[in-house]
């Protein structure tokens, strides 16, 4: 049957060529489109994680939902000692976050002020690399403040200027101090740069009375794919029902959801292309089969079963589809791989879509063999499905009727 199918493919050149070309196009389109979609989503998530996000964060229960000083973590050292013994945890650090008003001369702005361990934070986030002027924070317990470019422009301050801070301390009392601007950063996250400021936690703790306290503890892991296992071990090690350890999937739920919605719309558009192509392949298959009714009738008359006729049609479409897929996949794969290494750059896209959390003009593709495999499989299955109706048409003829068909 295989050889017979091969001969038919070579004989019915028009149908073979059209099916080949359409399968080739749909395979290329599917692989490249999905790669571009996944790549841009991965990039948005990674950028957000890299800048100031975390693989895992540990909170006191209710801190995220209700907030307030009573839900601060109160024994940071004990938790940090436990984290140090968990395999896969690369680094961790505690952060004390609060909101307050920063003022310089007649200018004021609301800001999120965070007490951090400067040394650890340099490895945990992109804060140090985002420096644009001045210098990054040091672990010297000084009243230095490291502010976002947006904050600096709102307050009209430059490095070395002194700004005042008013906020609430961890015991709900008023806290006020003067900070010296040591450095200005720009991460590209528009809202973050316009609102965040950082202070050495060692110094901030004395002002906020937050020694051994934290809003949360951020954890960096060796391998992001192992995040669920590591999180499970952290929960086990903490063994405290008042604490919760959450992975980036929960912490960035909204963004993950947004990617899912975007993917849904992407797949809807793809479904349109694939449906039209499926119909055309089916039409060509049908035309081909209807011109061979007599041939099928004779084959049935000389003893070929219906199953063998189906096998013949199956082999024909399988050979044609496989050939197109085998040729299209490496080309599409190469395109995906190339653009995953050398992302397309669309100048100005980050500025334009800053409200959506886009921080880079780069549009990288994703190169994932598993994704490519299922894309290819979908095209193959659709092509195989396209012979169902033509076969049913042939099937509707009896052998004698078919052999007399004109």
């Amino acid at each position: 049957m295989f050889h017979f199918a091969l001969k038919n493919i070579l004989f019915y050149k028009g149908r073979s060529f059209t099916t080949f070309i359409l399968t080739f196009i749909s395979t290329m389109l599917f692989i490249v489109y999905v790669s571009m979609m996944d790549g841009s989503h991965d990039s948005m998530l990674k950028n957000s994680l890299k800048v100031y996000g975390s693989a895992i964060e540990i909170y006191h229960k209710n801190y995220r939902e209700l907030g307030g000083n009573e839900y601060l973590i109160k024994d940071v050292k004990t938790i940090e000692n436990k984290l140090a013994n968990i395999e896969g945890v690369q680094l961790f650090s505690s952060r004390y976050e609060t909101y307050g008003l920063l003022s310089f001369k007649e200018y004021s702005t609301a800001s999120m002020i965070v007490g951090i361990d400067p040394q650890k934070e340099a490895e945990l986030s992109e804060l140090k690399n985002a420096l644009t002027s001045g210098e990054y924070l040091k672990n010297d317990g000084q009243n230095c403040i490291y502010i976002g470019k947006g904050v600096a422009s709102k307050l009209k301050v430059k490095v070395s200027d002194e700004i005042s801070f008013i906020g609430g301390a961890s015991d709900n009392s008023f806290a006020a101090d003067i900070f010296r601007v040591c450095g200005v950063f720009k991460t590209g996250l528009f809202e973050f740069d316009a609102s965040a400021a950082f202070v050495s936690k060692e110094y901030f703790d004395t002002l906020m009375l937050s020694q051994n306290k934290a809003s949360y503890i951020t954890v960096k892991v060796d391998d992001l794919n192992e995040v669920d296992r590591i999180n499970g071990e952290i929960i086990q090690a903490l063994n405290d029902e008042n604490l919760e350890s959450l992975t980036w999937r929960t912490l960035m739920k909204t963004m993950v959801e947004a990617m899912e919605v975007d993917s849904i719309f992407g797949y809807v558009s793809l479904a349109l292309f694939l449906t039209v192509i499926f119909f055309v392949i089916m039409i060509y298959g049908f035309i081909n089969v209807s011109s061979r009714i007599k041939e099928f009738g004779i084959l049935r008359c000389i003893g070929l079963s219906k199953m063998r006729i189906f096998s013949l049609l199956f082999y024909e479409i399988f050979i044609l589809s496989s050939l197109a897929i085998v040729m299209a996949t490496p080309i599409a794969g190469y395109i995906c791989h190339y653009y995953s290494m050398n992302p397309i750059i669309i100048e100005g896209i980050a500025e334009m879509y800053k409200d959506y959390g886009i921080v880079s003009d780069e549009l990288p593709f994703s190169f994932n063999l598993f994704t490519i495999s299922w894309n290819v499989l979908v095209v193959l299955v659709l092509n195989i499905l396209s012979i169902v109706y033509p076969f049913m048409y042939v099937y509707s003829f009896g052998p004698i009727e078919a052999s007399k068909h004109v």
Partner: protein
Amino acid sequence: MYRLLIKMAWKNSFSRLSRTLLLITMIAVSMSMMIGIQGLYDGMANNMLDKNKRSASGDISIFAKEYRVQKDIKYRIKNAELIKKDLEGMAGVKAVVLRVKADGLGATARKSSFASLYGIDLDAEEKFGRFGEFLKEGAISFDNRGALIGLELAKTLKLHVGSKLIFSTQDINGDINSLSLRVNAIVQTTNIPLDSDAIFVDRKKVQRFLGVKDGEVTQIAIMGEEESLENSLKDKYPEYDVKSFLELQPMMQMMQDMMFIFNSITFFIVMSVVFVGILGVMYVSILDRIREFGIMLGIGMHYKYIRLQIFLEAIFVSLSGYISGAVLGAILLVYLRDYGIDLSAFSDALEMWGYESVIHGTIKLSYFTTTFTAIITASILSIVIPLRKIQKINPIDVIKAEK
């Protein structure tokens, strides 16, 4: 003669019923899917555009020079009431609103976040942009120290209707002042900055709080009817910063452009594949009847009549596909417009991006006219190659040839 040709073309179009039905189904399904997707995407973009206009900038906004760069209340329009009166008397101006804005810190007993205080006039805003339609929860009213809060800000500060809230900022004299408010309603404008930051309060109250005079505002937003209005206002108020909606929201323009490019590419690809489908069917249909055409030429029928018959066949089939697709597409679009797609499961994400959780489509006549043109063009082009084949045949050879 022509009546006979039409009759023959009609019968031949449906002589191979399965094949023709398959082609009609392909055209109908692809066309309805395509216009459904276009309607949905346009609906999303238009909805965002419309609500952004109604909730913020209108068609044109006027600011004091430097305000948009400095975002400081120091740069405000001082004779706003007079300008408003003047604008309301101008031809092409539908509605005018005055707004005062100040950035600061919103705080509850447990949470704090950046917030922007917007002083607005509810009646004027209703007339300007049907503000009441943005209501998500509660009642649109400023009674009892009432404030209206953007949906995302409410989520951040964990605010509900009835919650108390303090807004602190610097007034005109540089002093830090606080305003105690009670949430009367939560609103969703689908304008990202407003939903994530805005606290709407009565304009006069905000003016008193900030220490600015009654007629002083940071923005005058205008809803207009004429495109020339922008230039007229730029000429009339050179001392102010007059900006059109798209100048203020370039992302909207880019979004529209990208939507247009995406829809055009989709349209081109789909129509190209549809063309390949029609071509295949027409080509085979003509080849099947090549003897028939040979005989017709042999008995003296002019080639132009055969060409007309084939042309009519292609038109009949494609028109049938188009009509089926148009009906299916119209049903789909009406459904999308009236009921929309409920994506409540992803509401957080959609709201963060400025969309509603139920996405509604839009209907434009152009979906049907452009598709009509494309399908008819594709069907006409699809008969060019088969016709050339007929033109070249020798009737005697074709008649003698075995089928």
